[in-house]
């Protein structure tokens, strides 16, 4: 055996698995399909606006030719372009009338560099939702199973937030919060008066407000409130694989990382019921090679992982590895986004904010929970948002030139607020990732075909979220209130999930309650594909907790000789 363990992918999930396995003494290989990235020196975080290429704008022709999908993501600009794939080099197919936005980057650290860093726990409202309304299959775990692992990953990652005592958004091990600004505080007060079943709290985020000794030992420092976090942070103030988990894994002496290695397939030895090898293609030379280990974790992202499993067909698994259930690639989900509302506020004109904080506020789910009303849909949505005073950019849409304009823009504009909805998406088996029958990528691997739509429940939920957002802003004294939109195509929240779901029954799910494949004992999957339902909060913290939990389970089984 080359290694004790192989981890495919170096993003949030893969980084956590690598750290935990290395710290348990296992010789671990991380395989990353993209290029190497140096923490700090490869970031443009110390560039002032006038130093960033084209002031942040990616050339129009380059966007059209190479970034038709990626450029739709808010964090895409000339200072982050290196962290997004070229769509022209990494195509995927969808039915023409059913777009799916697959935002991704192929490089060490994956999307842990560009994530929005919001970090929330799921609750038993979420883990029991499928069982209660009969959609999808039941999660094989409950909150009590994952709670200690949330504690563990929060302490290490460093999550700032306020303890609230809410059942639907459990508290965690928090660093001091990043405080609400004037208008957000007033909004909180007003909303909690008008709607006693709703709460507004600081956005819980993976930023070090007060680093612990453990954080400092890894070279991480406190958040400097610079903003533009998606460029990477040389202070290591937010959690990423490059600032936190991979350095911790490296310290053990047990970590090996190979980059530019695209996993082609996993080989399966039916006699031993085990993965016998991981075959990769060198991204640059296109030469093939293979690695062996006692246990394999696939953390290639929900769509990437489905692609690898489906491509790993064998005599025993003709539909793809670990896919006796036919659930691999199915039940693709993403949070419903592109909904909510915005408005301006006439007050607080003598007040301002200083610094560029990395978060805003969170207004957790209440619909069908603390408010059991007349909803004509299942599950629910929460909101995240922020308030700020506008600056010079407002003049683009306001008439005015000359000294008058300059004088006016010298002072900040009115306060504005955005309430951004995050809706739960139900699992549906026909929302699906498959391999394209004929088209191949530049390495000869079948293209991913994504066929995924929102259903009636998502549409009704989005409509109600807009209505609520407008109502809350109006009741809090906002003007010029308008909806943000009617929802973006699936994929737009960059939270793809569900393509290798956990479940109790091997006939209807891919993974057991420890993220271990029902069908292959030395195969674990801990990225978003394991998710049995989406919940209504950003899922990354849950991937971290499940990854740490599964890695330690696998280490236990290896140590006891049971695997």
């Amino acid at each position, binding site marked *: 055996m080359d290694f004790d363990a192989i981890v495919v992918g170096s993003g949030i999930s893969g980084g956590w698995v690598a750290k935990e396995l290395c710290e348990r003494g296992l010789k671990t290989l991380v395989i990353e399909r993209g290029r190497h990235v140096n923490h700090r020196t490869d970031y443009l975080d*110390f560039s*002032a*606006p*006038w130093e960033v290429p*084209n*002031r942040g*704008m*990616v*050339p*129009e*022709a380059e966007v*059209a030719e190479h970034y038709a999908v990626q450029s739709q993501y808010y964090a895409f600009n000339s200072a982050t372009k290196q962290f997004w794939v070229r769509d022209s080099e990494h195509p995927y197919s969808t039915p023409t009338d059913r777009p799916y936005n697959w935002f991704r980057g192929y490089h060490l650290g994956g999307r842990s560099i560009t994530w929005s860093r919001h970090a929330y726990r799921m609750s038993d409202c979420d883990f029991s939702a499928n069982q209660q309304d009969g959609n999808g299959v039941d999660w094989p775990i409950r909150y009590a199973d994952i709670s200690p692992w949330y504690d563990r990953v929060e302490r290490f990652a460093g999550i700032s937030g306020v303890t609230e005592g809410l059942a639907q958004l459990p508290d965690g091990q928090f660093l001091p919060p*990043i*405080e*609400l*600004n*004037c208008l*957000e*505080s007033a909004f909180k007060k007003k909303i909690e008066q008008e709607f006693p079943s709703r709460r507004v709290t600081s956005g819980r985020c993976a930023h070090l407000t007060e680093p612990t000794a453990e954080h400092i030992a890894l070279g991480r420092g406190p958040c*400097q*409130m*610079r*903003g533009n976090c998606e460029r990477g942070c040389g202070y290591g103030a937010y959690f990423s694989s490059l600032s936190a988990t991979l350095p911790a894994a490296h310290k053990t002496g047990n970590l090996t990382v190979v980059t530019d290695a695209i996993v082609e397939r996993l080989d399966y030895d039916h006699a031993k019921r085990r993965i016998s090898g991981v075959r990769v293609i060198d991204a640059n030379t296109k030469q093939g090679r293979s690695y062996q280990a006692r246990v394999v974790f696939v953390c290639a992202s929900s769509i990437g992982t489905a692609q690898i499993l489906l491509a790993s067909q064998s005599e025993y698994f003709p539909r793809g590895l670990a896919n006796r259930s036919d659930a691999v690639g199915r039940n693709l989900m993403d949070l419903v986004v592109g909904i909510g509302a915005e408005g301006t506020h006439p007050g607080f*004109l*003598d*007040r*301002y*904010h*200083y*610094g*560029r*904080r990395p978060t805003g506020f969170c207004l957790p789910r209440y619909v069908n929970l603390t408010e059991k009303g007349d909803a004509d849909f299942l599950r629910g949505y929460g909101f995240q948002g922020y308030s700020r*005073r506008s*600056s*010079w*950019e407002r*003049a*683009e*849409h*306001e*008439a*005015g*030139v*000359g*000294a008058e*304009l*300059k*004088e006016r*823009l*010298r*002072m*900040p*504009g009115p306060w504005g607020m955005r309430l951004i909805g995050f809706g739960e998406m139900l699992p549906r088996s026909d929302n699906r990732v498959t391999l394209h029958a004929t088209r191949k990528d530049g390495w000869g691997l079948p293209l991913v075909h994504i066929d995924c739509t929102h259903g009636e429940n998502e549409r009704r939920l989005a409509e109600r979220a807009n209505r609520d957002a407008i109502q809350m802003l109006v009741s809090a004294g906002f003007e010029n209130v308008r909806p943000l939109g009617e929802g973006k195509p699936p994929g737009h929240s960059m939270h793809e999930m569900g393509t290798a779901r956990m479940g109790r029954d091997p006939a209807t799910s891919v993974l057991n309650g420890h993220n271990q494949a029902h069908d292959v004992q030395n195969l674990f999957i801990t990225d978003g594909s394991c998710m049995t339902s989406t919940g209504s909060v950003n899922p990354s913290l849950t991937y971290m907790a499940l990854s740490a939990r599964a890695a330690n389970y696998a280490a236990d089984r290896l140590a006891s000789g049971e695997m």
Partner: protein
Amino acid sequence: MLLGAVLLVGGGAALTRFVRRSDVIAGGSRRGFNAEQFALLEQVCEVIIPTTDTPGAIGAGVPAFMRQILEDWGTENSRTEIGSVLEAVEKRAWSKFGAAFLELAPERRLEVIAALDAERIAAKDPAYSKFKHLVLVGYYQSEIGATRELRYELVPGAWRPCVPLSEIGRASAV
């Protein structure tokens, strides 16, 4: 083919003619704009953001930024759109005052630009929006615009969620 139809009346011929990139390279002149066009661009930008107690658009390098961005960032379509705004300025100068924009006194220049701005903003004209956007980005995201006209710190070091505006005194550039 000339990019941007020449719509001039009277004696200002070729002032707003846009030059193809290949022509420019072959001719070795300023990229994207010829000398006359660049002179017009400079003065239009300076009218939109004039020199006051802080530098204006020219002092902050906005025209040079526009020239660079149209070459490095913009497509031909964008170059044509920006050219069309300059043409509209020139056309309005002739129709209103019977002279080229560059021959007008400062208050008349302001009158031309203010009228065009009000009209095009009201109409949500995409070409004008792009033009104004680039002028604003060029100024307020320049070092002079961000740090002398407005306030910008690379490393704020702290988040102060609710401070008297008078303590900060000006808008933040980012």
